């Protein structure tokens, strides 16, 4: 065989040796013509893809319970109140590394927020109503009137005495505020909803995908509701929050079940995502749902620092910018019309870590 056939095989390989000058001479005009044709074919699709990122101008959703003057200030954290039976509960004062819900709650009252966002696992170990009443209520519960919660895995746990399936303790304690789309529901509720806070659109989601009807995949009731909600979202800035992060350096490794929802948020130009579950603080660079760093991506914060205990990092996830696992505290967000400021406020008891900055909405 002549070497030419060898060259042709090499041409098909991704890491081919240098091609024959003859082939190059023949191939360049052909490739050029094919490229022009391909660009022409791809052009309408490119326009369609770009259009998907543009907002539709339709309606708004629920309005926040409190009217605000000036830019709203939001305080958020997850993984909060220890069970009163916990060995480290210590009458609600906790120990140096556990059960610090009293100290983080003090930061809520000290900073006078417009809204409080508990990011799931609000009450350990199983979120029973009695535990809520004994531990969460005297601490974070003091802000209940301005609280917009999301549910976590521990509220669904049933291995504690008195635990009732379907996060009954959580939905009973928070009532309609935890699932406003089902005002009379007290167990096995969907637990997702949206509202307006100042100029921002806020979306609370349920990431316990095995506990809600249809899961979280594309086409599920929650994902379909989200897409509809986003299609009527006229706000320049949108924040979404739920319990289990998609991206994390923590022990959970991220929850792939939330990928379709994250994709919807990215497509709709949502600026911020807040999560808990991993018991540390982590901030990511803007990224898309596939983990690619992109300027118009979603900025994710993991704020599992509400007081229960500290977690640890297994690795450093792609696009992770800031991490801390030894300071309890809350994330403060000041929501401007087209931008936001963030600051991690340490509880002043466990550590002094902080992180702050500003960014424009995408």
């Amino acid at each position, binding site marked *: 065989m002549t070497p030419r056939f060898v060259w042709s095989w090499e041409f098909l390989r991704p890491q081919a040796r240098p091609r024959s000058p003859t082939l190059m001479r023949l191939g360049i005009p052909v490739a050029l013509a094919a490229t022009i044709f391909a660009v022409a074919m791809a052009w309408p699709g490119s326009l369609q893809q770009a259009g998907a990122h543009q907002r539709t101008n339709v309606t708004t959703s629920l309005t926040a319970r409190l009217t605000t003057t000036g830019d709203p200030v939001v305080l958020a954290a997850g993984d909060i109140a220890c069970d009163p039976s916990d060995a480290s509960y210590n009458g609600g004062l906790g120990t140096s590394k556990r059960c610090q819900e009293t100290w983080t709650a003090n930061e809520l009252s000290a900073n006078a927020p417009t809204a409080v966002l508990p990011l799931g696992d609000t009450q350990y170990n199983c979120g029973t109503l009695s535990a809520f009443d004994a531990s969460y209520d005297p601490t974070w519960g003091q802000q209940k009137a301005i609280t917009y919660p999301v549910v976590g895995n521990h509220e669904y746990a049933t291995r504690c005495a008195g635990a009732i399936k379907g996060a009954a303790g959580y939905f009973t304690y928070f009532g309609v505020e935890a699932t406003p789309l089902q005002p009379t529901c007290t167990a096995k509720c969907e637990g997702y909803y949206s509202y307006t806070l100042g100029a921002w659109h806020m979306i609370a989601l349920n990431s316990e995908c095995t506990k809600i009807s249809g899961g979280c*995949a594309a086409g599920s009731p929650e994902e379909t509701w989200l897409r509809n909600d986003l299609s009527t979202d006229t706000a320049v800035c949108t924040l979404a929050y739920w319990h289990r992060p998609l991206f994390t350096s923590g022990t959970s490794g991220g929850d792939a079940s939330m*990928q379709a929802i994250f994709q919807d948020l990215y497509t709709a130009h949502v600026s911020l995502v807040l999560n808990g579950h991993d018991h540390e603080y982590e901030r990511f660079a803007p990224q898309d749902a596939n983990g690619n760093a992109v300027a118009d991506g979603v900025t994710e914060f993991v704020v599992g620092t509400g007081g229960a205990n500290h977690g640890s990092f297994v690795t450093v996830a792609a696009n992770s910018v800031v991490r801390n696992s030894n300071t309890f505290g809350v994330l403060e967000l000041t929501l401007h019309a087209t931008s936001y400021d963030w600051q991690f406020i340490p509880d002043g008891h466990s550590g002094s870590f902080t992180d702050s900055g500003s960014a424009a909405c995408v």
Partner: protein
Amino acid sequence: MMPSRRDTPAGPKRGRARTRENRRLVLLAAWPRHLLRVPALLCMLAVVLFGAGVAVARILPHASAAPARPTPQLIERLDAHVDDLANMPDFEMDLSLSQTIDDCGAPLRGQFCLRYSITNDDVPVQAGYGLIPASQVRVHGSTITLVTNTARDRGFVHVAGRGGLISITWTAPRNLPIVASRSAAMGEITARGSIIGTAIPSSDVTAAVVIHGAP
């Protein structure tokens, strides 16, 4: 003397025949250099056209509505989460794999980044991460199987514990999604098996797979 049949008329005829044969031989020897160039060039042109098509398709995958070859499917995410183990309410198990997201701090190059942890009250009992060969993750129909021993992998980083055998089979309710280039699809699936000696329970497991069409 009459010429014998051996010497007469056949001589010149044979001589002409030999001349024709010689000409044919000459032609056969000389023509291929010219004639065979045409099919060779045609073959080369076909090869170049095919090669250019492949190259363009790689650069602009959206150019063709019906690609000649199916897009390679990569596993963007594959995970299993257990929050509530029987008789061990404070234990949690988490494992995740990715062929596209580099959470292991090293270029993937077709390998998988594997992360796992078993925690007791958020304290890691077993935890680690590292790259594993693609051959340790097998996809067949609607199932994906992972069999690896992190204790034997020198490149594996053990954050807690010494690692060990991980054997998990994920099963999708239907065949795994086929996705176009540069897009992704997520599906919720079931997971069975064990992570370093701890069995994944039959209930209260969260697991999902995200398939990504390679660019």
